[in-house]
């Protein structure tokens, strides 16, 4: 079976993985502690909050409802009525560049400096 694989296949795969790792390293290095939590819905800013102040933010739009919680310098989405719940299963974020996205509701939670 392995015999069908050509050199080009391996090179293409390796190039993709190397590029991905480079981009990942770049993203990781450019991360730093941020304090501003920015919630956007549909590309428009819904609100801006401080990461160091614990609070619960209900985000309601015509697409649905998400609950964003800032606690102990971490942001999580604790509840949502979207079908896939990817946003709820996402780990808490606390560094610049990190984001939680809820595609069905077009909601993004970002951390900025």
């Amino acid at each position, binding site marked *: 079976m392995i015999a069908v694989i050509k050199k080009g296949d391996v090179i293409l795969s390796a190039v993709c993985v190397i590029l991905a790792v480079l981009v990942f390293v770049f993203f990781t290095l450019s991360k730093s502690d941020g304090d501003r939590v920015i919630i956007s819905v549909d590309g428009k800013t819904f609100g801006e909050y401080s990461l160091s102040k614990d609070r619960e933010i209900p985000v309601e739009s015509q697409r649905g409802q998400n609950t964003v919680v800032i606690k102990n310098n971490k942001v999580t989405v604790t509840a949502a009525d979207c079908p896939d719940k990817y946003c709820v299963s996402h780990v808490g974020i606390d560094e610049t*560049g990190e984001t939680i996205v809820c595609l069905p509701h077009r909601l993004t939670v970002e951390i900025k400096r």
Partner: protein
Amino acid sequence: MKKTAFYGSILAFAVIMGYVEFLIPFNIGVPGIKLGLANIVPLFLLYKKGFKEAIIVNTGRILLCGILFGNVMSIMYSLSGGTLALIVMYLLKKLPVFSTVGVSVGGAVAHNLGQLLAALWVIGLTAAVYYLPVLTVVAVVTGFLVGIAATLLIRRIRLKD
């Protein structure tokens, strides 16, 4: 009539593949990770029939799967990803240095890019781009496996014209 039956059954097979994927969700916190089983069908058609046939069946598959298991948004992401993947696979197939496996890997990576482009359009740049490295590495692995499966299928199934 034979043609109708052939494309009907292959479209049905593609929808089943989509259903199998719908049953196995890879929920690891990053949206959009899938095995890519459904890509076996356009790959097979690309080698056995042609670009036009592959794109018609693939578009039909995306619309049917989207109506059955998804929503308008998922159709949009799938169409954007699926079409870009098919164009890339068509171009890679023309190069003699790639086997079906390489073509499949290229298609899988392009599928992510296509979906990302749709996501950029919907939610804006910064958020979606952060998922790209993880998605690309996953795509190389799944693309490789799907490519091997497609190679077997292309070899074993002979079509009479």
